[in-house]
């Protein structure tokens, strides 16, 4: 029953996508509002259908209806309800269902937001989303159908992949990543829509940018969440392994970040039109590439699902999207030509362009490192590995360069500047950078990269601080606001700019956290007897006992440790090993005491099988890891500020006298099209 219902819903969603595509294209090209409207409404239909399919799947999972194929493969009566509910994304077809549902939700939201705006562009945007929908809903109807009927229904199933049912965070990090990944389809749809409609002026770009920021924020949170998951679950004491799938989520993030900067150059100066289009399209292609990596099992990875026919289909879709987009760009190339001018080589536009060069170089490097084993295998039939030591080596210098630019770009004026202004702008940041550098040296840091990171971090914070100081004091003088209110004014009234600075602050916090944990991380592996204590850093760890516990879905062996920090008793911690019937290797669950300054991280490595007299434990004291999570949160908040809609008031009767004569006189009564605040806000929630 559920099986039929779910399948029918997916077919309905596919039908909706057909109408979106056909109606949008015909309605757009032939200028038939009726068809365009039908396409728009079809997004709601698809969304309703996909929601129904999701609900059916959740009901099937939670009621253990093993006659549904997907439930028979990932469900089990022993798995706790929470993990059963989120096992929706623990395997291939379920995750495509989830992906499809998010896509349908985004599409419906786009249709809703744009129901009254820009009748030229919207049908094409809907059609582009429809094309993406055709592929994903098509997968669900065909090769990745999760609703297949199993006859006779088995009594029980194997349960989800042990790694994916081991921590609460599994309920958080994949949805965030999916919201980010799928969200990037929206700016892509705007780009394709603009190319199709032929109207390549700046309005589409402004709308695309907001969707991009939203998706970018989700993606950032998803990446940080993934690092957190890796840290809390995998038990190896690290948070980023340059795993192909981690790289796959990082690549679109890099290009999206590049776009968010270069888009400003186009908005201000009308330059880089083709470049920005390419970045949007490249970002979306990279999300497809990332999904392809995860779904095809083409590269060794923790996350690979290794399934047959989906891989080639994904590859075909990637090829189609890439080829189609490039054809469109070439077709419209005459309208994309923009005579650019650069007044001063030292200017904000130059900084953004340099920023883009580095972001693209980073993307290229990470991509090359990720697929290089394939290249070697193709050419030489040999297997090699490209792992963390390589990525750390090539990534770090470029990332440091970006960190530096982050302190330069925002402080440079557009167009041109003078040496005198430069000196004034950068005095405080440079002093701060040097001060932090000296402090780090005094604290005993001797390695080059951490030192440079600290110095740049101080420099960037100096720049950001200066920007806020200038803004606050200007607002105090102009509007007579109290300092705190003036500060809030900046965030609420020009969220785009000052939210951006908040994001930058978060990135600096993350960079500092990486450098600190890299410099002062200490670890030891010891075998302790009952009652024996280990002193490490300021912690004392005492081993009490080994215990075993039968749980419905697994057998758990844990060791109990008492922990003190200095004189203060922190409590008991129980790092565990979990034995799942479906997994040869036990899955470790580390135990972590987190604090802002440092983490104590315990992983059970081995234990005495008979009697539990001793246990081998890996103890890591890892400073400032919490900064990564805090920094991630700050990035999220900053992005939220940046897209949070603010009220706009009527223009004042006249501008400041100081601006008269500066070539900045207002043009009378040219209405600025309003973005749609309410809808974007709803979307963000």
């Amino acid at each position: 029953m559920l099986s039929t219902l779910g399948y029918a819903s997916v077919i309905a969603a596919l039908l909706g996508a057909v109408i979106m595509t056909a109606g949008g294209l015909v309605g757009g090209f032939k200028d038939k509002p009726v068809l365009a409207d039908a396409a728009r409404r079809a997004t709601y239909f698809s969304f309703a259908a996909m929601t129904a399919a999701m609900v059916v799947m959740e009901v099937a999972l939670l009621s253990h209806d093993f006659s549904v194929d997907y439930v028979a493969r990932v469900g089990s009566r022993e798995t706790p309800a929470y993990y059963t509910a989120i096992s929706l994304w623990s395997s291939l077809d379920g995750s495509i269902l989830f992906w499809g549902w998010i896509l349908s939700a985004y599409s419906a939201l786009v249709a809703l937001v744009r129901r009254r705006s820009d009748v030229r562009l919207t049908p094409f945007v809907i059609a582009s989303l429809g094309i993406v929908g055709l592929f994903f809903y098509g997968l669900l109807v065909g090769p990745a159908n999760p609703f297949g009927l199993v006859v006779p229904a088995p009594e029980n199933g194997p349960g989800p992949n042990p790694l994916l049912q081991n921590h609460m965070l599994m309920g958080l990090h994949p949805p965030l990543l999916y919201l980010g990944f799928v969200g990037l389809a929206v700016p892509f749809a705007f780009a394709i829509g603009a190319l199709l409609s032929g109207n390549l002026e700046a309005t589409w770009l402004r709308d695309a940018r907001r969707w991009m920021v939203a998706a970018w924020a989700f993606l950032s949170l998803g990446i940080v969440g993934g690092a957190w998951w890796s840290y809390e679950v995998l038990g190896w004491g690290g948070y980023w392994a340059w795993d192909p799938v981690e790289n796959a989520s990082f690549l679109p993030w890099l290009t999206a970040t590049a776009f968010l900067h270069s888009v400003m150059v186009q908005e201000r100066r009308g330059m880089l039109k083709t470049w920005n289009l390419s970045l949007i399209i490249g970002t979306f292609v990279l999300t497809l590439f990332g999904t392809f990596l995860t779904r095809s099992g083409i590269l060794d990875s923790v996350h690979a699902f290794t399934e047959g026919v989906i891989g080639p289909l994904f590859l075909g879709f990637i090829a189609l999207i890439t080829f189609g987009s490039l054809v469109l760009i070439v077709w419209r190339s005459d309208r994309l030509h923009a005579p650019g001018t650069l007044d001063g080589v030292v200017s904000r536009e130059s900084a953004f362009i340099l920023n883009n060069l580095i972001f693209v170089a980073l993307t290229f490097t990470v991509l090359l490192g990720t697929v290089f084993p394939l290249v070697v295998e193709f050419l030489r039939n040999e297997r090699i590995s490209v792992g963390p030591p390589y990525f750390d080596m090539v990534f770090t210098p470029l990332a440091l360069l970006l960190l530096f630019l982050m302190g330069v770009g925002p402080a440079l004026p557009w167009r041109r500047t003078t040496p005198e202004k430069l000196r004034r702008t950068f005095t405080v940041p440079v002093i701060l950078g040097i001060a932090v550098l000296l402090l780090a040296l005094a604290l005993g840091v001797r390695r080059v990269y951490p030192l440079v990171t600290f110095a740049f971090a101080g420099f960037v914070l100096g720049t950001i601080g200066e920007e806020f100081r200038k803004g606050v004091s200007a607002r105090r003088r102009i509007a007579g606001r109290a300092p705190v209110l003036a500060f809030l004014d900046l965030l609420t009234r020009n969220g785009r700019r000052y939210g951006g600075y908040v994001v930058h602050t978060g990135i600096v916090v993350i960079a500092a956290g990486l450098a600190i944990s890299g410099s002062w991380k200490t670890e030891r592996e010891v075998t302790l007897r009952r009652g024996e204590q280990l002193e490490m850093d300021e912690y004392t760890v005492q081993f009490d006992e080994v215990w075993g516990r039968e749980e419905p879905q697994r057998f758990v062996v844990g060791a109990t440790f008492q922990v003190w920090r200095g004189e203060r008793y922190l409590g008991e911690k129980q790092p565990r090993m979990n034995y799942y019937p479906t997994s040869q290797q036990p899955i470790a669950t580390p135990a972590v005491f987190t604090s802002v300054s440092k983490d104590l991280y315990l992983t059970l490595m081995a234990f005495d099988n008979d009697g539990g007299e001793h246990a081998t434990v890996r103890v890591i004291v890892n400073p400032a890891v919490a900064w990564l999570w805090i920094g991630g949160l700050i990035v999220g908040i900053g992005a939220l500020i940046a897209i949070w809609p603010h009220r706009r008031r009527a223009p004042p009767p006249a501008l400041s006298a100081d601006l008269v004569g500066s070539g900045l006189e207002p043009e009378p009564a040219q209405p600025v099209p309003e973005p749609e605040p309410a809808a974007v806000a709803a979307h963000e929630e």
Partner: protein
Amino acid sequence: MRAALGLICLLAFAARPAVAGAAQEALSAAEIDQMTAELAAQLRCPVCRNQSVLESSSGLAREMQSVIRDRLSAGETPDEVKAYFVSRYGDWILLRPEPKGINLVVYLLPAAALLAGAGLLVRQIRRWASSETDLEATVAETQTAVSQATAEANVAPASQTEADLSRKALSEEDEEWIREQIGSLR
């Protein structure tokens, strides 16, 4: 990311001859531990997915660590130990490919691409910078910027008038800020 680790690797490279020399003499237990950890971080755990021998808690990885330790204690240099693992598992075991032969591509291509990109960019910037500022474009741009000067509404309360503003003592910095606001608010 994990900048320090990258650096350790670089230093390990540079320090090679010194380490080889030192291996002749008896190494202290702490030195052996340190070298073992450094080596283990560069070797891939065969039964894991993308973890190093150092990080993995799997039985095989732990035995591999003790093989590394034994071999170092017996006087082998880190290079010899690495070569031993390569002879058994192939280059696959190295998390960072040896910079030789075709592997050079993965080291040189990013640098080459960066340089090429920078070259193109410099050429483009020269072209942009040398082209006369298109007067018409500038005017158009200015007009857009000013039409965006609803911005000003956000900067100053609506009641703000020219007279009000002129009464306030605006520093040069404030003016710059206002101008900046006009541009950045869209």
